[in-house]
């Protein structure tokens, strides 16, 4: 069989699934965001929805909140993950590896519920504070759920993503970074010099790539902020969903416009990630 035909046939099912259900859906979203919805009598393509969305205070608030939540979750997770990896690099225990990987497979929803029961005003944290005499009433415990700073949301993301980034870092540390560090030692580099000149530059591309994935994910994820986030402003995917569910069908284009913007922003991060990945492969 011709090689090209063979490769095409092998790829066809996957391309079909992604092409029809994902790219097709995304294209439909773009079309609808342009105000083309024949089913409800909208047949004139226009940019009204984008004008409306980009000009609204709600959208700007949403966008800022989304960038804040994704940025804070990513930054905190990355720093903690690097520290955790450095601390764990020498312990080869199977059990610790297993425990550490647990958050990776646990659904976000479970993590969110668990975190909520720890940090809510009647949660474990508040009970502990009461036992220590720090607070008397639940309302004296700081509100960490449905709050302005999205503390519960960020904590859930941090719990989920730290092990993910840390394992990427750990793999690099136990592999080539560890070997290069030994070389640096025999060449006279002290602990700090080794980290700064050798280990950090070696693991940095992996750390950046993992952080990009985490940022793209937390930027577009729905469940955790929907459950633990405040009611206004909401992060972009929740805003889009709320618009979408609105009884007024004419707000469909606005919902779709927000969706398209989310897709564009996350696709940019995806492209950056893949570019970096290819660069790594070459190096």
């Amino acid at each position, binding site marked *: 069989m011709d090689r090209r035909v063979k490769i095409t046939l092998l790829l066809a099912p996957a391309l079909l699934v992604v092409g029809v259900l994902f790219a097709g859906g995304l294209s439909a979203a773009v079309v609808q965001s342009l105000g083309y919805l024949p089913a409800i009598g909208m047949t004139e393509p226009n940019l009204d929805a984008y004008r409306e969305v980009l000009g609204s205070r709600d959208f700007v608030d949403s966008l800022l909140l989304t960038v804040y939540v994704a940025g804070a979750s990513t930054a905190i997770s990355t720093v903690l993950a690097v520290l955790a990896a450095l601390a764990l690099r020498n312990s080869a225990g199977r059990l610790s590896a297993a425990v550490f990987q647990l958050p990776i497979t646990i659904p976000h929803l479970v993590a969110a519920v668990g975190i909520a029961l720890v940090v809510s005003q009647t949660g474990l944290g508040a009970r502990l504070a009461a036992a220590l005499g720090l607070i008397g009433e639940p309302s004296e415990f700081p509100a960490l759920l449905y709050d302005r700073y999205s503390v519960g949301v960020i904590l859930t993301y941090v719990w989920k993503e730290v092990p993910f980034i840390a394992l990427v870092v750990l793999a690099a540390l136990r592999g080539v970074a560890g*070997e290069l560090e030994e*070389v*640096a*030692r*025999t060449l006279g580099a002290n602990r700090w010099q080794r980290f700064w000149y050798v280990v950090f530059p070696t693991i940095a591309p992996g750390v950046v790539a993992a952080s990009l994935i985490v940022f793209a994910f937390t930027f577009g994820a729905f469940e955790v902020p929907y459950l633990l986030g405040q009611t206004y402003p909401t992060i972009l995917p929740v805003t889009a969903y709320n618009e979408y569910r609105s009884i007024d069908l004419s707000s469909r284009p606005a919902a779709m416009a927000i969706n398209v913007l989310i897709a564009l922003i996350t696709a940019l991060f995806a492209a950056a990630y893949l570019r970096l990945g290819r660069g790594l492969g070459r*190096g």
Partner: protein
Amino acid sequence: MSARLEIEGLTHSYGGDEPALSELTLSVEPGELVALLGPSGCGKTTALKVVAGLLSPTHGDVRIGGESVLGVPPERRGAAMVFQKSLLFPHMTVEGNVGFGLRMRGVPRGEARGRVERALKRVRIEGFAGRKPGALSGGQQQRVALARALVTEPRLLLLDEPLSALDANLREGMRELIKEVQREGDHTTVFVTHDQEEAVVLADRIALVTGGRLRMYDHPEAFYERPLSREIAEFFGATNFLRGQARNGCVETPLGTLRLEHPAPPGEVTLTIRPEAVRLEGGENSFSARVRGVTYLGTQVLYGLDVSGGVHLRAALPPHTRLAVGDEVTARLPAESLWALADGETTPG
């Protein structure tokens, strides 16, 4: 700057039943190149890492220049190491890699640049200073790694199978380069290898390690001429072994009574002689034999000889000797080439 290295009673255990290294004792003179030779997994790399300080020994002592370095971290031992993989820092240029050790020691930039240049010249890599390691061939990378270790003028140079990742055609050139650079700089060097030819060509002395123990420590020719045991003789390619009974300096064997120049211990012994030492001529220690096999090797011909009493010997002769299977010959085992192994009684045969 080169220093004497003394290793005493070194034992290292990774936690398994058998220690990776047990009771290794040897000393390396200033400027000497010692090969740690042994099959893979014999503990030689472990020994090197303990000397470098990358592993700490379970027992024993390591002294560099007469002082114990046990509590000294690797970065302050002055023992630069070259690994099997070049392990160049991928994010630095060649110059950055070679200058690394100088930078760590706070050598001023101008001075460092000159030293890097000289080090690159010594390993015959010039004009590559600005390149990233990824743009170099495997052989060039390994030279840069060598320059990176040399530039700091280490008290000890530790080489861990630096040639084994290279293509065969590059290996010889790199071998010459290492020898030359080592002689020039008078570096005390420990070279780990599993290749006995490499060890013989490079080393002033060879330390043969198997099963985590030192089996023999001597000059290369001793491993051919005076091996301590049958195992060592076999490791160095010996194939002729003859059982016999030593009496008054002579040994009674199925081939008759043979005279040895090196005295044999009384009792049961195993005699060995290298195939290239066997002569086809009459005289002392001669006997008749019959050719049973011929293998042409280009630079020599290997003959299998059947001797009376069911003894087989191998003789390596110059390629111009033309004998055929079945030919009757007279063979001689020169007294100065026969060597008696004391462990004859332990290998029945």
